[in-house]
């Protein structure tokens, strides 16, 4: 009963006058900068917050998320895991009719790569006719950057969670500029994909058979301390990966070693796809805990921004994807930008990317700001997350763990939306990347999830 034996230090929330009355008595206070919750959420919040399952459910879900131990265990051709006649894509489910430019471009490219169409018009016609089943990556234990299109002759990283046993897949990163994931499908794009199928994929498969599983949690933790946030900046992580792989690449595929190493070295984002799959095994481990209000996926298909919540199964809650705010390449500008696209927001969902911005001062200019803006972004995310990551730490914040585990009730209470770092795809199919920056998720995706949680709360 120490309450009665010490002069209290008081957290005050609400009327400022009562805080002042305490300070007039020389009492130390911590005033909460309180505002009413998002419009229309008060009733649902009261129900969800009073759900007796919620606290324990969230503790379980977020501990599963942060205790995941992702290992890169193999590289496999997508045809081994993909159902015939199916392509995967990023974000919540989408049809050809509603697909944006870069999504259509990537699907056309995949049709051409797979030899299922003679030219781009033929490809578009066949896709419109529904010859291919379009399925979200997320529903097949996968994540895809940008358009996220996966077709049978692409290769996938296979990541296993050593703690909870889950598996996740992600494609191999093609590099920058004119690439399929940004909706480009010209000859050089297809040529590179064919080389990846014939050379890179088999080489990495052979390499991993020599190295054995690679501890991605450890690589990510190191990269954060070397200035990456693992979404828009993966330079340190890619370098670390290259060090781990190089000797085995030389031994496994001596004839192709130079081109393989040169390809990885020439692409600072090579590690991004591994970071995404590593994030995916963690967030999947946190799925399906009844009563939990933890966000387990945020993903965009270029048209809709969707979220999934642990206590709500595989349901998507969506709102329109926004156009990112950022810096543009060359002569491109905001008019060339497609709305937000890609599964890479899985990094934010697991406490990386925008949430770890304070670890990555080198990228703040992408988002048009100062280092203090990056620090502010990360600090603000502690307001809407349930935990601090035990392994992913930020040196500049005194090695505080990154904010992890977005809670829809905290989003509704604070009105703060997740900070998302992203690339920007060209609006017109075939364009490729036009820039990179920050994007705001649509608030209705979170409020819709909250209302649904309220319906399920007893």
């Amino acid at each position, binding site marked *: *009963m*120490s*309450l*009665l*034996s*010490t*002069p*209290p*230090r*008081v*957290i*005050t*929330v*609400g*009327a*400022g*006058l*009562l*805080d002042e*009355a*305490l300070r*007039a*008595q020389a*009492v130390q*206070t*911590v*005033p*909460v*900068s*309180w*505002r*009413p*919750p998002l*419009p229309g959420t*008060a009733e649902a*919040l*009261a129900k969800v*917050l*009073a759900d*007796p399952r919620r*606290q324990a459910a969230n503790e379980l879900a977020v501990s599963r998320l942060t205790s995941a131990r992702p290992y890169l265990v193999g590289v496999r051709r997508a045809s081994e895991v993909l159902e015939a006649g199916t392509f995967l894509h990023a974000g919540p489910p989408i049809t050809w009719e509603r697909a944006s430019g870069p999504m259509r471009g990537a699907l056309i490219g995949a049709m051409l790569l797979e030899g299922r169409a003679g030219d781009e018009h033929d490809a578009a016609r066949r896709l419109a006719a529904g010859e291919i089943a379009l399925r979200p990556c997320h529903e097949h234990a996968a994540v895809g950057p940008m358009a996220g299109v996966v077709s049978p002759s692409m290769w996938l990283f296979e990541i296993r969670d050593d703690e909870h046993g889950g598996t996740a897949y992600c494609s191999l990163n093609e590099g920058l500029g004119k690439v399929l994931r940004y909706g480009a499908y010209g000859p050089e794009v297809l040529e590179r994909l064919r080389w990846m199928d014939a050379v890179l994929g088999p080489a990495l498969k052979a390499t991993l058979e020599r190295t054995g599983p690679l501890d991605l949690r450890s690589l990510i933790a190191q990269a954060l301390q070397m200035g990456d946030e693992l979404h828009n900046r993966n330079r340190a992580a890619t370098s670390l990966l290259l060090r781990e792989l190089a000797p085995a690449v030389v031994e496994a595929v001596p004839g192709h070693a130079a081109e393989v190493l040169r390809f990885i070295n020439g692409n600072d984002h090579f590690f991004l796809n591994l970071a995404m799959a590593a994030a995916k095994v963690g967030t999947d481990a946190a799925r399906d805990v009844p009563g939990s209000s933890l966000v387990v996926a945020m993903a965009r298909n270029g048209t809709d921004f969707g979220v999934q919540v642990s206590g709500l199964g595989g349901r998507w809650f969506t709102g329109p994807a926004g156009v990112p705010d950022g810096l543009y390449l060359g002569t491109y500008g905001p008019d060339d930008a497609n709305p937000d696209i890609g599964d890479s927001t899985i990094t934010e969902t697991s406490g990386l990317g925008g949430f770890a911005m304070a670890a990555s001062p080198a990228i703040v200019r992408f988002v048009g700001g100062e280092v*203090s803006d990056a*620090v*502010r972004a990360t*600090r*603000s995310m*502690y*307001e809407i997350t349930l935990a601090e990551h035990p392994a992913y730490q930020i040196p500049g914040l005194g090695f505080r763990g990154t904010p992890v585990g977005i809670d829809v*009730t*905290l989003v509704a*209470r*604070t009105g*703060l939306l997740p900070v998302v770092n992203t690339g920007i795809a060209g609006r017109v199919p075939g364009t490729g990347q036009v820039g990179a920056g920050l994007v705001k998720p649509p608030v209705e995706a979170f409020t819709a999830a909250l209302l649904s949680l309220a319906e399920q709360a007893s």
Partner: protein
Amino acid sequence: MSSDAVLVRKGTYHDSVALMRISRALTEMSGVEVAMVAMATELNLGILRDLGFTVPAADPGDLLIAVRAHDTRAAVEEADRRLTAGRHPEGAPADQPADQPPLTTRSAARTGADLVLVSTPGEYAFAEAQDAIQAGLPVMIFSDGVPAAQERRLKELAEAQDVLVMGPDCGTALIGGVGLGFANVLGPGPVGVVAASGTGAQQVTCLLDWAGTGVSHVLGVGGRDLSAEVGGLSTLRALRMLDEDPATELILLISKPPSPEVARTVQDSVARLRTPVLLALLPEIDLTEAAERTLRALGRPVPEWPSWPAWSGKQSRAKTIKGVYSGGTLSAEAALIAGRAGSRGGDFVDYGDDAYTRGRAHPMIDPTLRVEALSRAHESDLVLMDVVLGHGADPDPAASLAHAVARTPATVVIALIGTEGDPQDLHRQAAAFREAGAAVFTSNAQAARHARSLV
């Protein structure tokens, strides 16, 4: 020539006390006749209508700025300046732009604290209080309008976490010499108070203070704690805490009569305590009697409770008593005593009730509604009212109320609840009300008896 301006700022929230202060500052600008900056609740829209403004369409979540002035633009600009100035809480130094002020109790609790004081509008209090309990911190819920089921849930959670929940609708507490909410300046002493009535506790402790007897702690539990629905969970915990507190020699429990089932539990619990417990169950005894019994139990003399007869000595022509109160228990006590005179007892309104505080500051801070009530009173009325001093209350209630007392044709009797240590200066307040024509008592029961004798 003055004109009206009414603006609606969509979805902009400020707490009602901050808004009342801005309204007051605008009113003091030269050329401003009326200024009201308030959330667009039904009550506030009604007041605006009564003031003759054209009322726009607005939701309770919107902010209203209404001014009648020679230069409405200057007044609105001043309102906006003050509204944005209040955006940045003091304590967040400007040279540390990267600092994130806590937006919820949950994140504030990470900074380390001993106690949480929640005073958000009642419909939002549950989230903040639950954060506190889950962080293992005791919480005082000043907010009213919290549903009983939520109160029960919070107190059950608190049982599991072994922390005290004071409230909801807990107006006052004193812990380790620190006053929380509406809090009189009280000296240290042997009496520990557990109170299901905020103003009840204030009345009793102020009288004890006058008699030279201090308190160890005052733990409020909320007016519903001893109901069957809530089950007295906080009362039982508060009793145990005071029993273990070495500074507490006598425990005084102030409450309305509990439900019979809860009463048995409380009695069982009291029987097991080492510290003697005095039960002051209202209205079996009045608050002044409770203070007197406490003094007797401690073997201390009972003094005369100070009062100041009306300055003018004018003959009362009042026929009806109108209670214009800010404290619920004080209002009920006064109604009961003055009402004993049968038909001469009149209408009592507790302006501290939920119905009047939604989207408005408490009447202990904001005098507007009670000033209006005084202006509506007739010569044949006797207005019986409380004025409560202490931290958190109006820094100078006489400044706004004494003028209204002087202007009303009614006879006015005031129960002045405060101590000589309170920042408002008890004697100066008493003198101002007396000069305005009121009779002033430090005992609410005596004020009510005096009122009854005048009609």
